[in-house]
């Protein structure tokens, strides 16, 4: 086996298979498991998916939301067992892979159009068998 395959074989068991298709620009809700003492609860973080970095087990996603008029971004490891679930709340239209320009936007211009370029994303979901978009 070559080097990359060996590395992949180490991480493959931990890769999630139930991640819904999330495109850049979508509004997603990330359900994080938080352990306090011996209790566990779920915390949600909902915002726009503005970037996806890395590949394989190293995939990181950046989610941006506005709290009290202050932009907050969190970076999540996509395959971390501490993340219970990803949920796509709304499909957004983005023409680039990194939406860092949203950081300079304020007010209404911050919003992204709804995805309406054909049914492309639905087709992907059907093939992938992931959960369908809501709304």
């Amino acid at each position: 086996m070559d080097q990359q395959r060996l590395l992949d074989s180490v991480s493959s068991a931990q890769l999630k298979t139930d991640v819904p298709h999330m495109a850049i620009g979508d509004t997603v809700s990330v359900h994080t498991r938080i352990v306090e003492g011996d209790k566990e609860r779920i915390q949600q973080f909902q915002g726009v998916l503005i970037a996806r970095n890395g590949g394989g087990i190293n995939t990181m996603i950046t989610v941006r939301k506005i709290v009290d008029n202050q932009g907050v971004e969190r970076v999540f490891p996509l395959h971390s067992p501490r993340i219970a679930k990803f949920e796509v709340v709304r499909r957004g239209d983005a023409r680039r892979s990194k939406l860092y320009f949203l950081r300079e936007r304020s007010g209404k211009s911050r919003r992204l159009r709804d995805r309406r370029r054909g049914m492309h994303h639905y087709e992907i979901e059907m093939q992938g068998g992931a959960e369908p978009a809501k709304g």
Partner: protein
Amino acid sequence: MGLSLLGTKVGMTRVFDEAGVSVPVTVVKVGPCVVTQIKTEKVDGYNAVQIGYGEIKPRNSTMAMIAHDGKAGADPLRHHREFRVTAKEIENYTVGQRLEASALEGLVYIDVISTSKGKGFAGVMKRHNFKGMPATHGTERKHRSPGSIGGRATDRGRGNQKAGIRMPGHMGAERVTIRSLEMVRIENEKGLVLIKGSVPGANMGLVELRTPTRLYRSKAAKQKAAGK
């Protein structure tokens, strides 16, 4: 006393532990190493086990080495190392025996020996972590220079520099030992060992894994609890 195995650095990745914490790991493909010779006190003056690892084309080896490996029933081997054992331990080894990653089972910590990546002729900031000179306040063309390397008084008037002054020069491509690295997991069927953190050298490079020679008290206690 000890055990040494040879392997190849595969690369780095991450694993998530039970708590969900991301642990950076270096993957090393270990063995199979063949025991090519057993040295005994009586014959050689000391007790040691010699192992060989890695394929080599016969035409790139020598007749002497090919025959030496052949005695152990192995194809020509690229690398050979030996490690000392006690007179008692030596009975556990036979010529031709194959040592795999499973031989490291039961160990928690491990020493890793490898050749570091060559950095070429490096300046003092990179090579010895000097601070360099200020960026501004009148500094000209000396931002990364070592500064003073001693005056007439330090060499007691002999005119040559004091020995051992750290200076620019060749960096890297040398044997580096990192002691007591934690082993995260051993994947026997693939012969892989996952070591926490980084390991010297480039990917595809030769790596020697050795039973730890010295452990800090806390690590020794952990090792003892794990057995072996």
